[in-house]
């Protein structure tokens, strides 16, 4: 699986394990042997984004530990009245399932992309985008509900004032990521549909030839958005 080119047309297997890490990083060529620059750069961008969300969750933790005022109970704050009884956190649970489903369709889109099935890839990507848009819509509903109930970045009716600022900052930034993802999903889906990656048509902005790997790189971003939600769901809504 992992090989590197030594001479023209000759390949040599690369060592695995710790020896492989040392060999790859000290090879004086490129450290990520079998990963294209596009994929490596997406990973490094996602790493930096991890730090951004990490800092948000960290500051939320710090605010929550250091306040004397009790933290509002998210289970009650995010409850929804359905059929006469309050169901705790139900909207957030549905949002979680929607986002996980979109991750599943995205993974399958990547798969069909490498099989060069244009139709299925584009349809699955558009389905992913639709699920992402649904998620953002539900988030907008949630924001509206909380704002009408009196939650502000500087205060809320139930307890610690920092609740509002943490909530709007963390979910707002995540929602922005989802929105950007939906836009790019539609752009990439259009390119797949048109067959850009079959003929290696150049992008209008980067003027680089497109390949089906672009679908996988798009998928990395989308799965990351889902990944961040896993952490937000655990730390902000469930804790």
């Amino acid at each position: 699986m992992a090989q590197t080119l030594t001479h023209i047309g000759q390949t040599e297997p690369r060592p695995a394990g710790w020896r492989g890490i040392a060999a790859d990083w000290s090879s004086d060529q490129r450290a990520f042997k079998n990963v294209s620059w596009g994929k490596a750069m997406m990973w490094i961008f996602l790493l930096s984004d991890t730090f951004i969300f990490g800092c948000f969750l960290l500051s939320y933790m710090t605010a929550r530990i250091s306040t004397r005022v009790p933290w509002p109970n998210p289970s009650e704050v995010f409850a929804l009245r359905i059929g006469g009884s309050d169901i705790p956190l139900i909207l957030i649970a549905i949002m979680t399932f929607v986002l996980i489903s979109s991750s599943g369709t995205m993974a399958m889109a990547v798969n069909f992309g490498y099989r060069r099935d244009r139709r299925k890839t584009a349809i699955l990507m558009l389905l992913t985008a639709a699920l992402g848009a649904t998620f953002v819509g539900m988030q907008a509903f949630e924001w509206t509900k909380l704002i009408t109930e009196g939650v502000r970045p500087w205060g809320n009716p139930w307890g610690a004032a920092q609740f509002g600022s943490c909530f709007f900052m963390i979910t707002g930034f995540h929602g922005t990521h989802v929105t950007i993802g939906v836009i790019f999903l539609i752009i990439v889906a259009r390119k797949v549909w048109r067959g850009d990656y079959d003929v290696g048509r150049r992008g209008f902005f980067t003027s680089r030839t497109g390949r089906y790997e672009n679908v996988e790189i798009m998928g990395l971003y989308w799965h990351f958005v889902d990944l961040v939600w896993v952490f937000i769901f655990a730390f902000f809504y469930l804790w």
Partner: protein
Amino acid sequence: MAEATANGLGQDALHAAHEAPATRITYTEVHQEHPIKLYLVVWAWLFILSTCSYLVDYFGLHGYLRWSLILIFMILKAGLIVAVFMHMAWERLALAYAIILPPILVLVFVTMMVFEADYTLFTRMAFFGAGP
């Protein structure tokens, strides 16, 4: 094309000059192709784990049981997404360690801020008294 050549463009050109296109099988870049079934299984597991973490809240579990269950389900979900959906399980360790180690080091920052926040709470209690 030959993405993973030793030093990029120069070698690629050299390459093209010397060899017939048919023998240019020098892809070292790996395309991540796995059976659809694998994705469906992981998808199902993510649903199960999400349901479990929701049920932790639904049944109103408290204290260390609640926190440890939340963390276990969270780590399992994150692991499945990164390993299978993002294909990290099949990448070389040089990439996996470069990407996964730095976020784990954030835990050092977390530890520092736990102490700092405890100290802030302590001073607030000392100067303002217990919460309203």
